[in-house]
C-alpha cells in the first residue's frame, strides 16, 4: 500500500515539474487539476476500512480540484483572451532547475526532520514541501494572474499533502473548512482577475505597481 501511495506522490511531484516547465496556460491548468485528482484519491489508500466520511472528503477534493476550479480558470482564460505566459520573471528553464533543486532539498530536509516511525518510509513530507516550493516559485516567477492562481493552488496541494499525515486526528469539519477556504480563495482571485482585466485591459500583474502610493 505504501508503494502505491509513494507512486502517487511521485506522480504529483512530477506534475509539479510539468507545471513549472509549461509555458502554455492550458497545460499548466491541466497539470494542476491532475495533481488535484491524484491527491484526492490518496485518503482512500491511506484509510484501511472504507469510511463514508473519508470517501466524502476524497470525492469533494476530486470534484473541486479536478473539475470545478480548472473549469473556472479555463473560463477566465477564455474571457481574457490569453493562453500563454509571455514574459515570466523567472524563465521556464530556471524555474525547472529551481523546482528540481527544491525537490532534492525537500527530500534531504525530510530526512532531517524528526518524523513518526509510521511516516518514515513515505514520500508524504518531501512531496508536500516540494509542492509548497513549486507553488512559491510559480507565485514569484509568473506575471500573469492565472498562472499565479495555479501557483496558489499547487501551494494549497502541498499543504493538503501535509495534512494527510494528520488524517486520523483531523476532524471532518477541519477538512471541509480547508476545502471551503480554497474555494473561496479561488473565487476571490477569479473576481480580482476579472477586475484587473477590466481596469488594465491585461492580466499582467506588473501593471498593478501603478497602484502603489
Amino acid at each position: 500500500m505504501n508503494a502505491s501511495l509513494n507512486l502517487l506522490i511521485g506522480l504529483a511531484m512530477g506534475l509539479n515539474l510539468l507545471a513549472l516547465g509549461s509555458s502554455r496556460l492550458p497545460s499548466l491548468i491541466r497539470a494542476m487539476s491532475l495533481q488535484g485528482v491524484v491527491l484526492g484519491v490518496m485518503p482512500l489508500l491511506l484509510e484501511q476500512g472504507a469510511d463514508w466520511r473519508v470517501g466524502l472528503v476524497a470525492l469533494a477534493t476530486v470534484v473541486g480540484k479536478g473539475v470545478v476550479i480548472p473549469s473556472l480558470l479555463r473560463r477566465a482564460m477564455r474571457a481574457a483572451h490569453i493562453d500563454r505566459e509571455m514574459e515570466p520573471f523567472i524563465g521556464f528553464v530556471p524555474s525547472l532547475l529551481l523546482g528540481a533543486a527544491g525537490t532534492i532539498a525537500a527530500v534531504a530536509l525530510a530526512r532531517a526532520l524528526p518524523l513518526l516511525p509510521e511516516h518514515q518510509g513515505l514520500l508524504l513530507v518531501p512531496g508536500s514541501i516540494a509542492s509548497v516550493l513549486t507553488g512559491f516559485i510559480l507565485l514569484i516567477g509568473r506575471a500573469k494572474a492565472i498562472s499565479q492562481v495555479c501557483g496558489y493552488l499547487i501551494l494549497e496541494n502541498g499543504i493538503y499533502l501535509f495534512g494527510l499525515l494528520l488524517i486520523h486526528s483531523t476532524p471532518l469539519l477541519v477538512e471541509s473548512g480547508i476545502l471551503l477556504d480554497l474555494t473561496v480563495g479561488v473565487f476571490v482571485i477569479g473576481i480580482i482577475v476579472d477586475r484587473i482585466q477590466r481596469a488594465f485591459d491585461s492580466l499582467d500583474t506588473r501593471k498593478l505597481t501603478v497602484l502603489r502610493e
Partner: protein
Amino acid sequence: MTVTPLLCIAAGGLLTGLLAGRGSGGVWLAATLAGVSAALAAAVSVLAGGGDWEWRSGFPLGGESLHLRLDGISAFFLVLLCLIGVAGAVYGRGYWEEAMHPRSARAGRIWWSVLLLSLGGVLLASNGLHFLVAWELFTLSAYFLVTLDRHRTEVRAAGWLYLGASHAAVLALFAFFVQLSVRTGSWDLGPWPRRTELAPLFWLALFGFGLKAGLFPLHVWLPAAHANAPSHVSAMLSGVTLKMGIYGLVRFSGWMPVPLGTGWVVAGLGVASAVLGVAFALGQHDLKRLLAYHSVENIGIILIGLGFALVAIEQGGAAWGKLALAGGLLHVWNHGLFKALLFFAAGSVRHATGAREMSRLGGLWRGMPWTAGLFALGSAAICGLPPLNGFVSEWLVFLGLIDASLAHGSPAWAAFPAAILLGATGALALACFIKVCGVVFLGAPRSMAAAQAHECGPSMCGVMLLLGAACIAIGLAPVVFWPAVARAVGAWQPAWGGDGIPAPLVALGRAHLALAVLAVLAGWGLWRKSRGQHWVHARTWDCGYAAPTARMQYTAGSFAGILTEWFSWILRPERHGTGPANPFPAHSSHSIHTPETVLEKIVEPAGRLILRASIVVRRLQHGRVQSYILYVLVGLTVLAGWILTEGRS
C-alpha cells in the same frame, strides 16, 4: 470634607464650559470662571492646612478604578493652573476676538476647556493609566491651541515639532508607567519608600518629564511652539504646561527612591538650562521667541532647586535642601505669574502692531503706557530684582546653595559654582530685558505700525494688572505664601515639613517692604518736584543730528552683540552681508541670525539620516506582488531554519 463638593463643582463648571464653548463666549467664560474658582478654593483649602484629599471610585474606568488624590504638591500646582487658566481665558476673549477669528475663536474656547480639564486630571490622577490618558489629552489639546492660526506655514511647522517632541515624551512616560506597574504589581500610584528596584526607572521619567519641561538639550520644540502660538496660549504653555514636567519630576522623585547621583544630574541640567537658555535669549530678535528661551532659563532655576534638594536627601537630609526645594517650588508659581504677564504684554504689542520682530517696533510706551509699564514690571520680576517675586524664590535657592557651600562635604564644591552661575544668569537676564524694554518700548518707532500703536482693551489690561499685582504681593509679603510652599515641601519630604517660617525670609519681606516704601516716596518726591517745572519735549535719540532717523538707533542684535559673541561657541550665529569697503562705500549690509542650534545642528541632521535610511528601505515596497511573496518565503525559510537549529542545539 469640603474638597469633594468643590472639585465636583469645578468639574461641572469646566464641563459646562466645554459644552457651551460652541455657542456663546460669555456663557463659556462664566462657566469656566465658576469651575476654576471652585478648583482654586479646593487647592487653597488643602494648602492652608487641610489634610490630603483622596477618593477612589467603586466603578472601574478603563479597567482600573478611578483614584484621585489632592495633596500638598498637586494642590500647589493646581493653584497656578487655576490662576493662569482663568487669566488666559479672560485675556483670550479680548486677544483672539470672535469678530476677527470667528471659527478658531470657538475652537480655542473648546480646546481651552479640554486643556484645563486634562491638566486638572494630570494633577489629580493617582493611577498610572489615567495619568497617561490625561497627559495625552493635555498634549493634544495644547497642540490644537498652538495651531489655532494654522493657515500660516510656520505655525503648522511649530505644531508638528511640538507634537513630535511631546510624543517622544509620552513614549518615555508610557514605558515608565508600564515598568512601574509591572514592578509594583498595580497601576496605582503612591509613595513607595525603600523600593530601591524602582530607582532606575527615574531616568525614563527624567527624559519624559524633562522633554515636556523643556530643559536644555530637550528644549528644541519649545521656542517655535511658544513663539507661534497665540499669546494667551503661549502664556499657558510657558506658565503652566512646562510646569507639568516639573510636577512629574517633583512628584516621582518624592514618591520613589532615585538612583545615586540623580541630584547632581538634575542640578547640572538645571545650571546648563539656566545659563544657555538666557544666552540663546540674548541672540533672539523675535519678542516671543526671546521670552520662550527665558522659559528654558527659569526651568533651569527650578531644577537647580530640585537637584540640590535631591543631593541633600542623598547626603542624609541636610536642612539646606529644604530651602533649595522651597525656592524651586516658589519659582514655579513666580515664573508662571511673570511669564504669563510678559507673554500677555507681548501679545498686546502684537495685537497693536501686528509685529513680533523687535526690529520693527520701538517707542511703544507713548501709545501703550499700561502695556509698557506692566512689561517693565514683569521684566524686573523675571530678572530677579527686588522687591518683586522673582527675587524671593531665587533668594531661597541662593540661600540653599550658600548654606550648602558652607557645609562640609562634596556638595560644597558644586554648590558654590552653581551659585555663581545662577548669579550670572540673573545678570544676563537683566541685560536681555534691558535690551527688550529699550528696543521695543523706548526710542523712536521703527515702523508705521509701531508709530500708530494703541493700548489694548480693558479685559487684556485688567488681567495683566492682576498678574502684576500678584507679582508684587509675593514680593512684598513672602511670609503669607510660605505656608503653601512649606506644605508642598512637607508633602515631598515629610521630614522637612513642620517648622516655622525661615528667618531670612521674614527679613527679606521687611526689606522688600522698606524698599517699596522708599521707591514710592522717591517717586512721589520726583513727581512733586517736576510738577512746577517747564517741560521740554524732544525726540528720543536726537544726539544733535539735524535729521535723525529711527534706523540710527541700537537694534536688538547690536545691543546684545558683545554678549552673544561670548556665547558664539554654542549659539553659532549666522552672519550675512558685506561691510563698507573703500573710502566711498557703496551699498553695504549686515544681518545676524541665531539658529536653534540643538535643533538645526543635532536633531535635524539625525532626522535626515533616518529619512535617508527609510527611503532606501522603502524601495522594498514597490507594489510587485511576486516580490512580496518572495519576502514571505524568505521570512518563512529563515524562521524555519531558526526553529530547526534551535531544536537541535
